[in-house]
């Protein structure tokens, strides 16, 4: 049995939700915190948390500040430049991309029904992509099995991508095995 695991390259799309955590140093003079937060709001960041360590001092005698914010427009570099312009010292930046992810299994003649096309149908949406594929081909005439990991920018987009995959699979006579519902529906809305 041949067993192939492919890690597909993928590009990070600009509108994917990003969670950024920054450690900043502010001078111990009034108005510094506001100065530091202006660039964030200017570039559309959604601030989730600000911790202002009044009582602590860095070796340089500055006040350490941690901010965490969401960004959906990819303008992190603009924010960094802008902070530096106003004299805020950035100690570290930690960013994490958030995607909606789903794993599905395909069974059938996956390779001979143009696997490249199947993946392309998802990738060309621009909002979703196949990021991982494991393929198992037990024999020439036997059906293959594959697990596919699809990422999308949001849950609605993910459902749309899944819809595309199911349509393509139907055309190619492939069986798609989807995961069960992840979450319980929200009640008491």
């Amino acid at each position: 049995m041949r067993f192939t695991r492919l890690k597909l390259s993928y590009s990070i799309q600009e509108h994917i939700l990003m969670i950024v955590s920054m450690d900043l140093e502010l001078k111990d003079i009034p108005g510094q915190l506001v100065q530091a937060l202006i660039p964030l709001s200017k570039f559309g960041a959604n601030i989730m948390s600000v911790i202002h360590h009044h009582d602590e001092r860095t070796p340089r005698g500055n006040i350490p500040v941690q901010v965490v914010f969401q960004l959906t427009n990819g303008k992190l570099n603009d924010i960094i430049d802008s902070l530096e312009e106003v004299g805020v010292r950035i100690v570290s930046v930690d960013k994490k991309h958030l995607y909606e992810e789903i794993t599905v299994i395909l069974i059938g003649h996956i390779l001979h029904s143009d696997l490249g096309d199947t993946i392309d149908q998802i990738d060309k949406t621009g909002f979703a992509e196949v990021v991982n594929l494991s393929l198992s081909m037990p024999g020439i005439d036997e059906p293959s099995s594959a697990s596919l990991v699809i990422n999308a920018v949001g849950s609605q987009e993910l459902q749309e991508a899944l819809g595309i995959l199911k349509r393509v699979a139907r055309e190619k006579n492939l069986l798609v095995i989807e995961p069960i519902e992840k979450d319980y529906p929200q009640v008491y809305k």
Partner: protein
Amino acid sequence: MKPMRLSIIGFGAVGQGVARALINKLDKLKKSGIDLNVVAISDSHGSCVNPEGIDLEAALQRKVETGSVATSKTSSIEVIKDVEHELMIDVTPTNIDDGEPGLTYILEAFNRGRHVVTSNKGPLALKYRVLCDEAKKNGVRFRFEASVGGAMPILNLAKDALAGNRIIGIEGILNGTCNYILSRMFEEGLAYKHVLGEAQELGIAETDPTYDVEGIDTACKLVILANSIFGMDVTYDDVEITGITKITAEALMLAGAEGMVIKLIGEVRDGDDAILRVAPRLVPKSHPLVVGGTLNVALLKTDMAGPISVTGRGAGSMETASAILSDVIAIYKSSS
């Protein structure tokens, strides 16, 4: 304490299970104020009738020795029409094409003013609304806990124990044969055909396994859930069905690598995004829906109680008899 006279229509594995359960329980039930008396049993060859009460041991013995419970040619429909009794237990085999003969038996019992308890999915999956309307019209009770999930209480759980809750959706493994096959394929890395053969040898799968492995049985049970718990008006034809025959050992292995297993899941959901679907699905290994062997499981999503899961044996003559007996007792209590 008024005795309730019963007929058992159909005397296969389930019918015999009911007889055995009654032999074991009649005395205890009587002590707790429930007086049941079987006055007729029929199978495809004929029937035995005794207005004073049938000797159930002798009936079981006769079935083993002669292949039939019959002591006369009186047919099932004649028993339902002519033998005086209050409650008919329909345990005839499921027929998904036209629901017969169970459908005719049940309607006739209603017509004669008899309560009905059934384990037969065919009539329920095809004519649920008609049956409920007829029962109501004739002022009799109609219960069918045994038709879904065998011993596992699900209909009565949703309707009685969880009364007041809105049931948002139900997902479940409702066919033990499929669960056995997929569990074994996953655990041993064996091919579908191999495990099917093994299941047939063990008597877990029928010689013609179509009804189970193509998801038909699960779909029937889903229709019963949809109609009785969600108040839908759907039939077997409304269910989107995918069976397990195409599942490969490799697919299960790939799922396992992602921390998941593949299970044949029946899913029903109400509202704007209504779903009525039977399909193999990926389920995280630690999920409450992951049960092994021939077990059945259901997860009810409710608005107040949150998720409730119930698991149990989905088949077997004594297990099914347990569900039937609980329905009989419920009717006895409500009508005495």
